[in-house]
């Protein structure tokens, strides 16, 4: 059992949980994720590890209260326990000094970008960050991102915070102005696809970290399969990061919704 040791509300619908998981905390590297199951009869759901504290033996995850398991997780409190946590899963992010690093994040998935951007900063890169969200309330971890960025651009689609506009606008400005050596994009599928299109134009090596439906997280179920360079890959063991210029984003967008109808039935049941 894994006890929740702290809970922080990041926005009206987003929470950060710090959970006891000493073995995972010790082995975790940026880019890794966990699969957790809240209780008996629960489903197994993947979450990026946002940060870990090996000495305290804890990991942190960020959750938006949508979907059955996510909603249930958000309703848990300090002292509650999570039945199973498996990890750290997935290939770790490649962290090295590449020069100037462009970190692109959107919405809840800024949480997955943070550990990578932080590690890239620590590795000596100049970190330029662009983060965005639909609206102010969905923009999370801005202060944390600001702290590790040499330059940061903040946007909302509705203009309730930061610049208003399209993600690719500040991207192009940054790329025109700076010599970007490496880019990482983490967000919803269409946002990552848009980022990849822009960096492809400028020939900037770009990785996208994917999210996916998963059951076991060790390569056994194939639910997370995605076509990369025309070949089927498993996000859990071959990813979660892939060359953003080789990913079949259209296929990915389709598969993300593979259980939408079934999930919404379960959600109604929950409410």
């Amino acid at each position: 059992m894994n006890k929740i040791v702290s809970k922080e509300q990041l926005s009206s619908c987003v929470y950060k949980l710090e959970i006891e998981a000493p073995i995972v905390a010790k082995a975790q590297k940026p880019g890794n994720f966990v699969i957790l199951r809240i209780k008996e009869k629960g489903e197994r759901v993947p979450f990026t590890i946002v940060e870990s504290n090996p000495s305290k033996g804890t990991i942190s995850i960020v959750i938006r209260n949508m979907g059955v398991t996510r909603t249930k997780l958000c309703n848990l409190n300090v002292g509650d326990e999570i039945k199973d946590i498996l990890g750290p899963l997935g290939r770790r992010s490649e962290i090295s000094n590449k020069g100037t690093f462009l970190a692109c994040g959107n919405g809840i998935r800024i949480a997955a970008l943070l550990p990578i951007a932080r590690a890239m900063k620590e590795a000596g890169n100049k970190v330029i960050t662009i983060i965005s969200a639909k609206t102010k309330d969905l923009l999370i971890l801005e202060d944390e991102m600001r702290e590790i960025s040499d330059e940061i651009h903040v946007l909302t689609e509705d203009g309730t915070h930061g610049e208003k506009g399209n993600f690719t606008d500040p991207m192009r400005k940054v790329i025109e102005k700076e010599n970007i050596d490496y880019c990482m994009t983490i967000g919803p599928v269409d946002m990552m696809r848009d980022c990849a299109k822009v960096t492809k134009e400028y020939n900037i090596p770009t990785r996208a970290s994917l999210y996916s439906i998963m059951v076991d997280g060790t390569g056994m179920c194939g639910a997370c399969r995605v076509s990369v360079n025309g070949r089927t890959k498993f996000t859990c063991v071959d990813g979660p990061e892939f060359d953003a210029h080789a990913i079949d984003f259209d296929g990915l967008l389709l598969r993300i919704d593979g259980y939408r109808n079934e999930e919404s039935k379960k959600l109604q049941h929950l409410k």
Partner: protein
Amino acid sequence: MTKEEYKEIYNQEWRKEIRKSVSPKERMAIPRVVMPTVPVEERIHSQRIEVNKGLSLEAAQLEAKRCLDCADPGCMKGCPVGMHIPTFIKNLERGNLLEAAKTAKSISALPAVCGRVCPQEKQCEAQCIYHLKLNKPAVSIGNIERFIADWERESGNAIIPEITEKNGIKIAIIGSGPSGLACAGDLAKLGYDVTVFEALHEIGGVLKYGIPEFCLPNYVVDAEIDNLKALGIKFVPNFVVGVTATIDELREEGFKAFYVATGAGVPKFMNIPGENYNGILSANEYLMRINLMDADDENADTPILTGKNVVVVGGGNTAIDAVRAAKRLGAERSIIVYRRSMDEMPARLEEIHHSQDEGIEFYNLANPIEYLADETGRVNKVRVQMMELGEPDESGRRRPVAIEGNIEEIDCSVVVVAIGVDPNPIIPNSVEGLKTSDWGTIEVDDEKHSSVDDIFAGGDIVRGAATVILAMGDGREAAANIDKKFKSEK
């Protein structure tokens, strides 16, 4: 066991007497026992009702009476681990059930499992004299084995194995499927300090995540695991060796040897157009959602795909498991699509019969070539190339050959792909110097010893996709060889 050793057991007084007590003619006149089953209407709505109800003592003993106790028994040769079949059968006949159970357990670590899932019709029962020479159905060895093992579990007289004095040597078993459990049990009995690491949240490997409860109920597996816990074996779920901790880190923690039994769990896909549409999933995903995450329980959190027509591609045990699971989830038509004919189907015969009783449809000599989808990207048709059988291939089965121009379409909204699995790559990828084959299996010598000194391996990670009984046999052999290694080092 040598011929001489068998002769000695064969010629024990009680055995001679029981042989003589009934004439062969009378024995041969007894019809083969029929395993009672739960009626289709009752079982078809639940993933959790075991179809076979098991034999009564009387029925099991009557079936035991059929066995002619051959001097040179074919059944033992047909068994991949050389189970002492006639010895447990004759013990049952004379009413010494405890001795029968001991006999079965002396060879198989999991007789209650093997009695249920072994393809007996291809192994022991295929070599039974009734089948080979008498033109009658073989002695129902699998059902007898199951009866004996179930009796032992339910009687409360479980055999408590003797444990050699503890030697404190730490051994790590990687994977808690049949191979890992068998190895762990033997090593614990030999006094080793055994820890079993399991990636999933349940102990039991394929016995839990793969085989549905209507074939093998969880309580049967759990009883075996409880027995192993009683031997002092530690089980660590949610731990992927090679990821959560490396073998090197475990070495630092004092583990002196490793048995890798991580199985073949990577699902194969066909790489045909449309295979990534929604509604198309691997049998592993489908069965794990049910078996490990209770998706069949409407109060569970886990979603599962259901549809009017469910197509399952493949002809092995997993395909049959999946197609029967689909029926139980309410599919109107639950259809196997298999590229060869019924006769070549590798699935266990009894399961095929049960599935036919349950109304499963078989679309044979058909090979999927493309999937079609509706405007939301959900599969709605599979296009199949119709086949005919040509010359036998290297497996001895007649090779399916496409009939040019003969393509059909089947309407469906769920497709489960069950065309086989590849070895799990995590250990091979994470251990330097570990020799593997081109197929990703770990290479071992006759003693299950890999190219790395402290690593042994067996089961499907060595064999590719094989059977529970072979995996279990490997585990036991590896345990003996691990013991030999430490004894010789002393």
